[in-house]
């Protein structure tokens, strides 16, 4: 019997409901408002009253309005049809919402209609089912039963979209029957499993279970159908030079990008979403600008992914809960994103989750906490802020699946600290749990030095693509050059020794030709690791060289000229004749100025 309740109070997006029967924490219910049903989630239970956050505007709700509980937690739909979708935080497909709303009126199609929810996976598409499991074999949750071709996962160049034993199945089952190869929708049965007596918790009703391609999983619970967690060792190639060379990200690792507004967080995330060498990218626009999402929406389908030769959108899922969309679904959006990522990880794929911005997610928690009148912590954030952030990043990782293959979820989150000051609760809680810190600085962005990743403050625990010692040598020049630069502001150029001055110029040189990368230039926006290695070794020559300059004017002039040639070289297509010629010119220039 389903539980029902009645509204006792309405305050913003929070309602208090008096219920009969049993309810669970985080259970989903619907508040009935005229002909609309508004989705809500239980966030606190006290006696026969529970507080629910409503995933929509609460206007027109009245005291004594009915609430129907579903008995289920907020869940995501998993199965074929996820790729290339654009969802809101609750996994409603946005294009379909617009189409559905268009049935009301032309103008209605432009807006997100209250109480309108649609299934996350298309029900009408028939997928070309290829069974692979053996009849009679013993399987557990997450084991493969077969596959269907979906987009780039066509089963030829890349393995197909694997259909798995639903993650919610506990214990061991035997495969009783499999549907023959053919076309099926996500809701048609493709396998029948039989619980093994004594080894399955559902053995009490030891009946066979029918399995469909579609399965549901509560978004706030991590999927754990793997045999072990592995250390993140391999470097994830982002083709952003500062990141790969200086502050690398590992496959299955975590990193954060805090920065004040206008420092280029979103552009950096977009560049990463485009060029990172992973199988699937899940981009969660959480409480950010709609305009930026639209950019991705319209541009990605046009961009060809060099790896697959197909549209970049085919490897991308966008979760888009922009700042003006309901706060409660913003809170859910990052969980939806990471749940979809875990699903693809279970197929043995490398998935990158980009959350922009985790501060907006934290603020959603703060708004909710305020409405619940909980005792506030620092800056009115709830006391559980840190543990929630930690638990979210812990869902990243590289795992060995039960068939021996590996899959991974890498999480990169931006942080938007108030006033650009990193000494605030969200940044600090995040720094404690991530493996890489790409701090963006206002000073760099003001000087148009993009990406504005601060080369001195940032850090990473992961292995870079170039030997650490060489990278450290370059970094120490950056550090020293910065010191000289600071000193020069006090003692002036004349008070600086020739040697220090050259160090300063070298640091500026690294910055100008290597750290700075133009995200809007076709050739410079992406630098494959191979090219980074060549660039780095040419640059290194200028860093270690003992130059014979007569005076500072000559030194400055030399580096200006070298910088110009290097920037021109960066514009040349990789492995072209011009590229080789540019390299030779640079090496010659450096050699001729050396003592």
């Amino acid at each position, binding site marked *: 019997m389903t539980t029902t309740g009645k509204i006792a109070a309405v305050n913003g997006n929070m309602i208090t409901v008096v219920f009969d029967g049993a309810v669970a924490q985080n259970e989903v219910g619907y508040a009935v408002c005229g002909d609309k049903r508004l989705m809500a989630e239980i966030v606190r239970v006290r006696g026969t009253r529970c507080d629910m956050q409503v995933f929509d505007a609460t206007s027109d709700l*009245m005291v004594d309005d009915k609430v129907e509980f579903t008995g289920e937690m907020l869940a995501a739909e998993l199965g074929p049809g996820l790729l290339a979708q654009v969802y809101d935080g609750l996994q409603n497909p946005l294009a379909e919402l*617009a189409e559905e709303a268009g049935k009301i009126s032309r103008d209605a199609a432009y807006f997100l209609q209250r109480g309108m929810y649609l299934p996350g996976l298309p029900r009408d598409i028939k997928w070309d089912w290829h069974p692979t499991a053996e009849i009679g074999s013993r399987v557990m949750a997450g084991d493969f039963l077969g596959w269907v071709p979906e987009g780039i996962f066509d089963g030829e160049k890349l393995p197909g979209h694997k259909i798995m034993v639903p993650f919610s199945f506990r214990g061991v089952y035997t495969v009783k029957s499999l549907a023959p190869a053919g076309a099926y929708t996500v809701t048609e049965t493709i396998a029948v499993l039989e619980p093994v007596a004594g080894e399955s918790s559902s053995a009490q009703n030891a009946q066979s279970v029918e399995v469909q391609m579609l399965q549901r999983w509560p978004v706030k619970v991590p999927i754990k159908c793997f045999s072990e967690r592995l250390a993140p060792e391999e470097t994830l190639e982002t083709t952003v030079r500062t990141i790969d060379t200086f502050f690398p990200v590992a496959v299955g690792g975590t990193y954060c990008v805090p920065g004040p507004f*206008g420092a280029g967080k979103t552009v950096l995330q977009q560049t990463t979403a485009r060029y990172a060498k992973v199988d699937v990218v899940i981009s969660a626009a959480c409480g950010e600008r709609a305009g930026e*999402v639209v950019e991705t929406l319209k541009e990605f389908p046009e961009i060809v992914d060099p790896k697959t030769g197909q549209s970049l959108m085919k490897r991308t899922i966008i979760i888009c809960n922009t700042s*003006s969309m309901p706060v409660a679904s913003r809170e859910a959006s990052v969980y939806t994103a990471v749940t979809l990522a875990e699903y693809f990880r279970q197929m043995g794929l490398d998935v990158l989750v980009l959350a922009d911005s985790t501060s*907006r997610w934290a603020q959603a928690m703060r708004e909710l906490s305020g409405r619940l009148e909980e005792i506030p912590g620092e800056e009115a954030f709830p006391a559980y802020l840190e543990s929630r952030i930690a638990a979210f990043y812990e869902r990243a990782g590289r795992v060995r699946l039960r068939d021996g293959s590996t899959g991974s979820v890498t999480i990169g989150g931006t942080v938007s600290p*108030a006033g650009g*000051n990193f000494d605030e609760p969200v940044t600090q809680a995040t720094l404690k749990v991530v493996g890489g810190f790409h701090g963006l600085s206002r000073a760099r962005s003001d000087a148009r030095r993009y990406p504005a990743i601060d080369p001195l403050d940032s850090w990473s625990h992961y292995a870079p693509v170039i030997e650490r010692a060489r990278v450290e040598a370059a970094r120490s020049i950056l550090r020293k050059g910065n010191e000289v630069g600071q000193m020069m502001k006090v003692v002036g150029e004349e008070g600086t020794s020739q040697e220090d001055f050259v160090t300063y110029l070298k640091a500026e040189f690294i910055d100008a030709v290597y750290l700075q990368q133009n995200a809007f230039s076709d050739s410079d926006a992406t630098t494959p690791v191979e090219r980074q290695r060549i660039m780095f070794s040419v640059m290194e020559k200028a860093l270690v060289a003992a130059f014979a300059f007569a005076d500072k004017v000559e030194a400055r002039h030399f580096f200006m000229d070298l910088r110009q040639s290097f920037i021109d070289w960066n514009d040349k297509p990789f492995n072209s004749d011009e590229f080789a010629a540019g390299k030779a010119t640079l090496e010659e220039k450096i050699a001729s100025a050396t003592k």
Partner: protein
Amino acid sequence: MFNNRIYHKIDALSGSVATLRAEGVKYGEIAEVESRAGTSLAQVIKLDGPNVTLQIFAGARGVDTAAKVRFLGEPMKVPFSDALLGRAFSGSCVPRDGGPQIHGTPSPIGQPSVNPAKRIMPNRMVRTNIPMIDLFNSLVVSQKLPIFAKAGEPYNDLLARIALQANSDVIVIGGMGMKHDEYLRLRSMLDESGALAKTTMFIHTAADPTVECVLVPDVSLAVAEKFALEGKDVLVLLTDMTSFADAMKEIAITMEQIPSNRGYPGDLYSQLASRYEKAVDFDGAGSITILAVTTMPGDDVTHPVPDNTGYITEGQFYLRGGRIEPFGSLSRLKQQVNKNTREDHRTVMDAMIKLYAQFKETVEKQSMGFKMSDWDEKLLKYGEDFEKNMMDLSVNIPLEEALDLGWKILADNFEKGEVGIPSKLADKFWPGG
């Protein structure tokens, strides 16, 4: 059946908020409060069992416990019609220009968010003929952009100038916490240029009730949205959003909400965002472009209001000393349009700003009494040239002329190889080859 329910007893009054016992009340609906203080509209902001909390638009001052409260059964609506053009109203849509009340299609305010899938990529540049905007930070149709300024800067003049020079179909002005003479001046500026006929104003002056201040952006944007759906390009000017945030703070504190940062409510970001995100280019209809003023108390950009705003809007203009500062000022959408203007646009923009940054450093060195190198001397001359001929707000030239001027300023002060411009472009555009 619930319409026209009338109650005569108010249990509690605090700030602009009244609480009474009533039945069958909808969350968010509007009521009419008639008391010794006069008649005002009010909105339901909380339901708790039989207790209904109302926010009275005209404030609770003078409202007596025996006031007559009539629930209207529907949310706040603004009458929409073309007759709104050329007129001025208060935050609760009462004419403030002596003209008649408008009777139009009642349109609810604070409607749901636009579906991101129905937006189109902004790609139309708004030409303002101000080089610091057109060349360095191009404004784009459907952009939301605040002007950050400290009190006393001529921000309303800049706002008016952009409004007059930008070619929009309709202008909606939302004034919050305005001085009455500022309102009159703005109005006469629009009148003189003939733009008043396409303008609707919703003005809250500092003397008006606080709650009406909070209503101004919603009312302005609801009207703008209606015009945009009719296919019009609408420019919305909101001044000053800091007054709006302060009004929200005042109300939140009287409501005993837990403040988050410097007394502002925890949902300040969401509140600001839901207004700014109304900026849109509709797929198949018109557009809304929002230019707002955010005054920075103490010229501090880390103050919660400018700080949260910066995270929401697509860039910001810093107005300092009567000039648009090149540092910090940013139009996030400029990349969408400046690739289609002239091939040298981006390069000139980047090169000039980088050199101007170096000029600033040199000025600092100079003020500390250091010897100036030849390079420093060049930078100093360049900086002065740039500030005088490009940055000054009185410069009023189209983008193409501004680009030519940029090359001229560079060539007057530097050698071709010194400006960090790829040789290919420099060869083509450098004055004198």
